[in-house]
């Protein structure tokens, strides 16, 4: 198990970081909340990267980690991490943009036969929707989509009504389908780890600068120990995500467990970082003006998307006990 980045992987990671930090300032994130088209120019920079969804999961994770650090909005995640792998598994050519409808009425992140589909990412901004059903998938053009208001304006979620009778489902091997969904879960975990690390970095910087009682608050043990625990969780989750990505790329038998571990670890790390991050920022962190709440919104929204930490623990228990 070798976690050292190859030169190509290091280059990819560095390129992603400069792309996202240059092109996705938080001013765009805020503008996007009022008008989603504010992110359109930025999406153009990303179109050439969507094929990362077809390659090694490690590469996609390195890229998405940087996307998560800036709360990048738009159809990149849906297209690269969700849509393209399923379309490839179906043996079809991908459209420029797409998303996948998985959860039914229950909201659970498993293939459903329900007509209603919930939590469909960026459904009104894509050319194709793949509707996953037990044993297969339906490919359609855009469907009428009802926006779902969530904590997080940077990832837009929708509810769809699928005209089930109008399209024949293409057959899809259940293992291949599971693989696609788990792979996307790991990808989301990578993005979430990027968000958690950014919150940690912001909070460490703030603790070094903010002076109370004539000294930086970061010199107080109560604050230091919170930050140490935050950092440990972020490090742990990062390693869990990379391990899961390597396990998928190697087709290792441990990949199913690793996917649940990655999402649960990333969700827990992001929640802790968000909670303690705001707490350590104190009053300024409680303001609308400060950017931190944007990160907390993303952290919690992603924790609940594609299965919460609790849900992944339940699924993991199924693999440990049954």
């Amino acid at each position, binding site marked *: 198990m070798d976690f050292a980045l190859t030169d190509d992987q290091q280059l990819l990671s560095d390129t992603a970081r400069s792309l996202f930090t240059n092109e996705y300032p938080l001013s765009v994130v805020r503008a996007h909340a009022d008008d989603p088209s504010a992110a359109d120019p930025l999406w153009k920079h990303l179109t050439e990267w969507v094929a990362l969804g077809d390659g090694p999961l490690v590469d996609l994770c390195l890229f998405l980690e940087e996307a998560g650090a800036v709360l990048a909005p738009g159809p990149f995640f849906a297209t690269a991490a969700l849509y393209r792998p399923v379309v490839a598994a179906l043996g079809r050519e991908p459209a420029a943009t797409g998303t996948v409808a998985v959860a039914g009425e229950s909201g659970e992140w498993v293939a459903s036969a329900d007509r209603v589909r919930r939590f469909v990412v960026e459904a009104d901004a894509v050319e194709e929707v793949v509707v996953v059903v037990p044993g297969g998938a339906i490919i359609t053009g855009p469907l009428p989509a009802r926006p779902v208001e969530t904590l997080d304006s940077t990832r837009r979620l929708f509810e769809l009504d699928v005209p089930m009778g109008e399209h024949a489902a293409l057959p899809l091997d259940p293992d291949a389908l599971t693989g696609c969904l788990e792979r996307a879960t790991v990808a989301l975990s990578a993005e979430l780890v990027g968000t958690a690390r950014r919150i940690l970095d912001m909070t460490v910087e703030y603790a070094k600068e903010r002076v109370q009682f004539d000294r930086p608050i970061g*010199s107080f043990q109560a604050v230091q*120990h919170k930050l140490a625990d935050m950092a440990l969780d972020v490090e742990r989750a990062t390693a869990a995500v*990379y391990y899961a990505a390597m396990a998928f790329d190697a087709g290792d038998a441990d990949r199913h467990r690793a996917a649940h571990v990655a999402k649960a670890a990333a969700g827990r790390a992001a929640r802790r970082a968000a909670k303690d991050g705001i707490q350590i920022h104190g009053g300024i962190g409680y303001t609308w003006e400060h950017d931190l709440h944007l990160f907390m919104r993303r952290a919690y929204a992603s924790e609940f998307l594609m299965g919460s930490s609790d849900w992944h623990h339940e699924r*993991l*228990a199924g693999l*440990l006990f049954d």
Partner: protein
Amino acid sequence: MKLAWSAEDEAFRAELAAFLDQHAPPEAVEYGRHLADESSDGGAPPELLPDWARVWQATLFDHGWMVPGYPPELGGRNATPTQTLIYLSELAARDVPRSLHFPGYAIVGPSLLEFGNEEQRGLAPAAIRGDAVWCIGMSEPNAGSDLAGLQTRAVQDGDTFVVNGQKVWTSYAMIADRCMCYVRTDPDAPKHKGISVLMIEMDTPGIEVRPLRHITGAAEFAEVFFTDVAVPAAHLLGDVNDGWRITTGSLAHERGGLWVPGVARCRHTVDELVGVAKARGLDADPGIRREIAALYEEAASLWALGHKGFAAGAGGAEHSYMKLAYSELLKHQFEVGMTLHGPDGAVTSGEPGDPVWWRRFFASFAGTIAGGTSEIQRNIIAQRVLGLPRGA
């Protein structure tokens, strides 16, 4: 980033596996599986260093498998850091300890090699092979986390040091031949600058060893009292008043893998908890299933983090992440092991051979206190990894 090791490193593992298949004594596996499960409530203390363990350590040394990163004359085979990690993982996967006496090979041997003169370096092979048993005199009643505040005094008188004072939590002192002892030689200097290291023969007149019973009831540690103990000046390791830097003298090339046995234990413990939950008919309880899965998540992600840190060459300060995490996780796991027993959780008269969860739980506090408490580890992470300012 890739999951598989190179063909060369896989060959290294295969050679090790074949050696272990052939030579690892059954007692070693038994010991590894039942660490801290032995009963010693008021009974005879467990044998600290049984014969099989001495023979096993010498066998590993003679075959170059004791400290693989060392050259053959020091019990190794010039293994690379990656191979050392593979070595530690393979032993951990099999629950096989390489030694029941860590001070000799992990602390004394490397310290002698790094800081000793030629004659003192000559003592290293026996320390690593386990032929000589060493204890380490560090902690004192008033020098725990603040180790540099130690007060055991050594006064030079010609070619002799005269030592007076007390050490505590000294592992193996009851059976040790020698003590690598941290003493204050300059009480007027700043506290880090007045410490020296003496190698003291344990049969020197004036040394009294009293077994120290700890919270499980067992007596694996000791207090050591020094009263006018005369130590030849030639037994000084390093220079006078320069002993503090010798506290860092552990196996530099194994530092990247210090976490392996602890995290491996966390992983095994999850398997055992699954077994306990099933045996007690709790495996359909959603709360218990989630709780154990969360413990699995922590252990699995720590295993990954250890490897990630190793790849990044993470040394001293980053190791605090691992030490903090696995020692706290083990304590939590053992507590869960007790609670799975419901009303029997506090019952201490178990069936022979059962894992004894209360004893593991009690013993696990050694992990979160010894070698730098969890609070000290968090300080190190905050100040040396995250770069936060030191407190007032």
